[in-house]
């Protein structure tokens, strides 16, 4: 590392903090707006820092009918698709990274090409498939769709992470008498931590965010998910910014918790494995 003078160090710190503030601002603004009364929100005063706060908006948002159902639906579909994508993705990543078999490159190409399709385009055939499989209006159907959406990236990233584990470690465990499963459980799996975190964050965000399929596939009011709930807010309360912001905060909180829980492994892990071929 090159040596820096104190002045340079201060300048760097200031620069770093300015960028931090820029990236924090929209989140900060969402949060503080949610704490304002309608009168404060529409006042012409300059109110970058709120002087008083009310939890009224949050109360109103949570009291909306169906909130807890939507939250539960979103959590089920999102966490479910994260788990499914991780299991199926890891099962596929290991042979693609470590085993020799016919058609391997074909599978790799399939995984790569699958990421090209615009998901909005698959809408009509997807709708027909789900209808014929009787999975419309079912959380299971939505869950499967999200797993399929995230699998190509999951397989690709995990494959890179598996390749990143020195094969010597696995061979040493075999010499020590571990079976194939023992090697996987004792050596490969623990070392895959960052990779699993990075890919689960990706699946979580994709599923938690998805709006279009959730809106059209789910017909019953009690099967809707949070993004749909949030948008229904907007048409009903076109100008109630406080309410929308409070709903947005509520909607963002589970994602924030998920990220912060995994943050230590995430920072540095993101796609560190993904370039290893």
């Amino acid at each position, binding site marked *: *590392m*090159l040596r*820096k003078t104190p002045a340079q160090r201060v300048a*760097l710190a200031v620069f770093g*903090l300015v*960028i*931090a503030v820029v*990236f924090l601002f*929209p*989140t900060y603004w*969402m949060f503080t*707006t949610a704490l304002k009364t309608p009168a404060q929100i529409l006042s*012409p005063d*300059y109110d970058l820092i709120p002087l008083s706060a009310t939890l009224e908006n949050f109360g109103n948002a949570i009291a909306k009918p169906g909130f807890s159902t939507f939250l539960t639906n979103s959590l089920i579909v999102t966490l479910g698709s994260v788990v499914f994508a991780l299991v*199926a*993705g890891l*099962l*596929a990543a*290991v042979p693609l990274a*470590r*085993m*020799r*078999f016919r058609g391997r490159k074909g*599978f790799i*190409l*399939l*995984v*790569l*090409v*699958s990421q*090209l*399709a*615009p998901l*909005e*385009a*698959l809408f009509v055939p997807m709708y027909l*498939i789900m209808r014929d499989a009787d999975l419309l209006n079912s959380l299971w159907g939505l869950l499967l*769709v999200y*797993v*399929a959406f995230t699998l*190509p990236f999951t*397989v690709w990233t995990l494959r890179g992470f598996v390749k990143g584990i020195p094969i010597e470690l696995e061979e040493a465990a075999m010499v020590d008498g571990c079976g194939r499963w023992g090697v996987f459980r004792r050596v490969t799996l623990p070392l895959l931590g960052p990779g699993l975190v990075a890919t689960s964050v990706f699946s979580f*965000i994709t599923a938690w*965010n998805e709006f279009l399929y959730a809106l*059209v596939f789910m017909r019953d009011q009690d099967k809707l998910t949070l*993004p749909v709930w*949030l948008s229904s807010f907007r048409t009903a309360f076109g100008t109630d910014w406080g309410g929308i*912001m409070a709903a947005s*905060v509520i909607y963002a909180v589970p*994602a924030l918790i*998920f*990220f912060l829980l995994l943050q230590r492994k*995430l*920072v*540095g892990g*993101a*796609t*560190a494995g993904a370039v*290893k*071929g």
Partner: protein
Amino acid sequence: MTSTVNTVLPAGSPPPAARPGAGRRARRPLSDIALPYLMLLPAVALMVALLGWPALQVIAISFRKLDLGELVRGEIKWVGLDNYANVLNDPEFWVIALRTAVFTVTVVLSTLLVGLGIAVLMRHLSTWVRISLQVCLVLAWATPIVATTTVFQWMFDQEYGILNKTLVLLGFDSFKGHSWFASGGSTLTVIGLLVLWQAVPFIAFTLYAGLLSTPKDLYEAAAIDGATGWQAFRAVSWPSLRPLLMLVTFLSVLWDFKVFAQVWAIRQGGPDGQSTTLPVLLYLKGIAGSHFGVSAAVAVLMLIILVAVTWRYMRLLVRSPETEL
């Protein structure tokens, strides 16, 4: 792909044992040969059923007339290349395609530049400043798209938006009541900022990880040899960053080209269609307009553009020595 599995499984011919390094696995039982396919089965089955098969159907639909009537009656009406002719003969399509290309290139380049800058900066920050920056980035990254889009609309609001208020406070009185969504260019700039704000954290963290994986003594050696900061970056950081940069460029192109939710949520492609991009056109023709054949043709054209742009990189990935065992 399923056909590969079917033909390979029963054949059961052991691969040539003479391959160097494969001696250990020379005589493999049938279960060993089947194992990789069994492990791939869940993922491949799902991807084929819910991505591959629908994608093939979209290609087929692009050669059919499929409006609401045909859809309800289950009628199959082939029209050859009519849908493509319809799309390609519309001068509006070319305007939209060009706009999408400019949008994608601008957003990808600026995301990469900002992300790379932050990654390099993080290396030089003291611990607590770096952690504050990282927490802010994670917050931006984790805020869901629908929520972020709403916040951006609120910040850029004509009457009460904080941006206009700040600009007026700073003395730019002309921004009082200024609408940021009055023209396509301005609307797309706001959308670009929104996408950038959400995409930079992922890229910054990925590149930062790449920088960290460069051994520190290489930097020390470069410093002893009298390298300036820039020279050290070129000679030491660049080689380990290059493959990562190529990967995040590839992913950014895919993601930014296909951005739909944000563009749609901000102004539904307006005003007057001036911020309509290809994914929005796809939606307008298909789900909104019920011309599913035309919409499928747009999808196929988008796919062709993406394949053309990323083909060389994908070949590189598949052919690279790393994909060998």
